[in-house]
């Protein structure tokens, strides 16, 4: 397991390559990358991602351990940034490795669903007209029901 919470950008290609390369006899690697989207209309200057240092690492570790316990996984990777993000910046990524493609896919979706609603991050969108905290979506909370 490799869990990183960091302000600095990460090198997506390098991380995917390194994660895949260090697996032994895993037939399937799935990755998800989350990217900052621009806002329609006025446009977004930046997003500020606040987090709860200490609890964040703890929550992500718990989510990764739950995934490892539930599926036949060789490894899990989570990288999540905080601080200032611009449109098109990569916010976070997860990676899963398994002998079975269904396990790799399901575990990656599980990680994303839990990480969205159970890891202490908060997004604030800043436009030239002002700023607004992003509201949690009911569909994100509902997504947890399937696990």
């Amino acid at each position, binding site marked *: 397991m490799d869990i990183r919470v960091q302000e600095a950008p990460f090198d997506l290609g390098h991380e995917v390559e390194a994660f895949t390369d260090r697996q032994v006899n895993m037939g399937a690697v799935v990755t998800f990358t989350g990217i900052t989207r621009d806002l329609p209309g006025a446009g977004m200057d930046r997003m500020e991602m*606040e987090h*709860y240092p200490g609890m964040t690492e703890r*929550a992500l570790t718990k989510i990764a351990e739950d995934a490892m316990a539930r599926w036949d996984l060789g490894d899990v990777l989570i990288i999540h940034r905080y601080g200032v993000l611009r449109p098109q910046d990569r916010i*976070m990524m997860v990676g899963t490795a398994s002998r079975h493609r269904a396990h790799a896919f399901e575990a990656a979706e599980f990680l994303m669903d839990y990480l*969205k609603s159970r*890891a*202490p991050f908060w997004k604030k969108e800043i436009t030239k007209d002002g700023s607004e*905290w992003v509201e949690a979506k009911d569909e994100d909370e509902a997504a947890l029901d399937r696990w």
Partner: protein
Amino acid sequence: MDVLYFAWVRERIGIPRETLDSSATTVGELVEELKAREERYAAAFADLSALRVALDQDLSDFDASLEGVREVAFFPPMTGG
């Protein structure tokens, strides 16, 4: 006991953290104490359904006991990912 605030809860109350002496035995009692202190607390805690609480960095709920708890954090629903 350390009390931490994040996101718009932090903005509404105006500080990211404070250390309190409280006789509250549950999170709910602590919230009532805070609301009684000042209008900015009353505003932040007006709608508990819009808030989440963590005790010693684990998600919890508003009727949980504070016994042995050293760090309480209040914040809106998370929006990571």
